């Protein structure tokens, strides 16, 4: 038993380690870019709504349409569908570099949506109080809207991160590697079930860890 475990790790530890690194790379980079795009998009989506500070029907409907369209496409289709776009932005369509673009296209609108629902929770009265003090809209966005919804935003980002980990499994199809890809190629296609079990186990630990961390951080930021 012990011998077989040792043998397993002798054979596979390098591959598994590499896959973990690839997953972290993809999730980390794609998440960072998605936040940079999704957060402002969410703010714009919220503030362009009816009765809001930057009310703009065309912009609001436009953003809603684009976000809904992208969110309707399953990631595996999106991955191939936007290949030319990926090539244009990243210069390649394979490997980790080729996977980042579709992952961002997939995640950013999702973050924008989650952001919107977080921002809409902020009490209208507090925003009004700041308007009444003669404070500029851009200051209100950061110091009231985002600050007051930060606990909810963290929960939203936790959900998106876990969704992103799921999506990276499919990014293996463009040769980006990662844990999901490892489980699929070795575990499923080559019947190396042990590899599949171990990678699935690592993914479970990863998702559990992220969710717990997100919940704790969110609870700490919440003051009511």
């Amino acid at each position, binding site marked *: 038993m012990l011998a077989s475990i040792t043998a397993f790790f002798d054979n596979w530890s390098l591959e598994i380690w590499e896959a973990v690194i690839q997953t972290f790379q993809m999730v980390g980079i794609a998440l960072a870019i998605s936040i940079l795009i999704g957060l402002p998009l969410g703010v714009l989506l919220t503030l362009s709504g009816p009765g809001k500070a930057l009310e703009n029907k065309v912009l609001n409907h436009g953003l809603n349409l684009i976000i809904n369209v992208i969110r309707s496409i399953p990631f595996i289709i999106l991955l191939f569908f936007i290949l030319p776009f990926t090539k244009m932005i990243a210069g390649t369509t394979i490997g980790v570099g080729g996977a980042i673009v579709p992952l961002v296209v997939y995640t950013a609108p999702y973050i924008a949506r989650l952001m919107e629902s977080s921002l809409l929770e902020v*009490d209208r*009265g*507090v925003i*009004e*109080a*700041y*308007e*009444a*003090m*003669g*404070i*500029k809209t851009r*200051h209100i966005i950061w*110091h*009231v809207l985002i*600050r*007051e919804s*930060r*606990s909810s935003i963290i929960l939203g980002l936790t959900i998106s991160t876990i969704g992103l980990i799921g999506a990276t499994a499919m990014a293996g199809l463009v040769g980006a590697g990662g844990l999901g890809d490892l489980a699929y190629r070795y575990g499923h296609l080559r019947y190396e079930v042990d590899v599949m079990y171990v990678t699935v186990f690592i993914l479970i630990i990863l998702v559990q860890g992220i969710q717990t961390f997100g919940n704790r951080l969110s609870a700490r*930021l*919440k*003051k*009511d």
Partner: protein
Amino acid sequence: MIEFKNITKVFHTKSKDTKALDDVSLHVKKGTIFGVIGYSGAGKSTLIRMANLLEKPTKGQVFLNGKELTKMSRGDLNIARQKMGMIFQSFNLLKTGTVYENIAIPLKLTGVPKKEIKERVNKYLEIVGLLDKTNAYPAQLSGGQKQRVAIARALAHEPEVLLCDEATSALDPDTTESILALLSKINSELGITILLITHEMNVVQSICHEVAVMENGRIVEQGKVIDLFSQPKTETAKRFVQSIFNDKIPEELVENLKNSGQIVTLSFIGQSSGKPALAMVTKQFDIFPSILSGNIAQLKDEPYGRLVVHLEGSASEAEKAMNYLTELGVIVEKYQNRGESHVG
């Protein structure tokens, strides 16, 4: 100080247009506490939000110190708004910020120098009596304490005007009283003009110098608080006065007593509330007064009392007694059940 000129506000909804304010003009003088009272839906909330243009008028002008707010650019309006503090029924504090941050953040955002922020926060927390709660979060405070933080936040900008939007409506009677005392102190010691709206007559009674009564988007009555109490003209005003002075006498009793004399209402303002007027009446005339109802209330500047009295005796003696009372400075009126058909 604040002047509303012919303000009309129409809210458009899909089904119909609602006129929230209908040609309202109002002048709040510097240094006064001006109350606007009305039932919900009267338009008073819309009116106070016009003062700093949180709500823009459909027609009409708003002036602050003679400068027209309704003409200002966004940037100028923001500067003008910093001279007008505002507090709300729901306090509207940052849940994620401590008491200190709640006051300091808006100061920072309006460009107050760092060094001064700390001084101001401490100064105004001391005025509202919350220095010991500097690092507490709003969730750890009571309603009254939250409102004190909101008041400190407003005062920290050193405004000329404080707008109070139903500031005590969410508070219990004791807390309401302490907040009202604080507002009164702010007015007299810091010289800040206060415009407040409320649906509670006791707020008007205890701290306002002047009052306007609103109904259906219009100001139906306006003047000194004492005049509203002693001589309310409109049905709405009478109902508000009655909420403090409930001097309704059962109809049956009134009918009975009318046979043996007259029922009159006697209002005592300021000094006249001190004299034993009724005792003197019994001595000088062939009249037996009996008190059916009596109330006294401390208005901001003077006490105001009202008695409903049955004057038993002949009509001519009653007439003489009433004239005598009038000479003493008592306001004498024939009794009528005020606002009877409306009081439920």
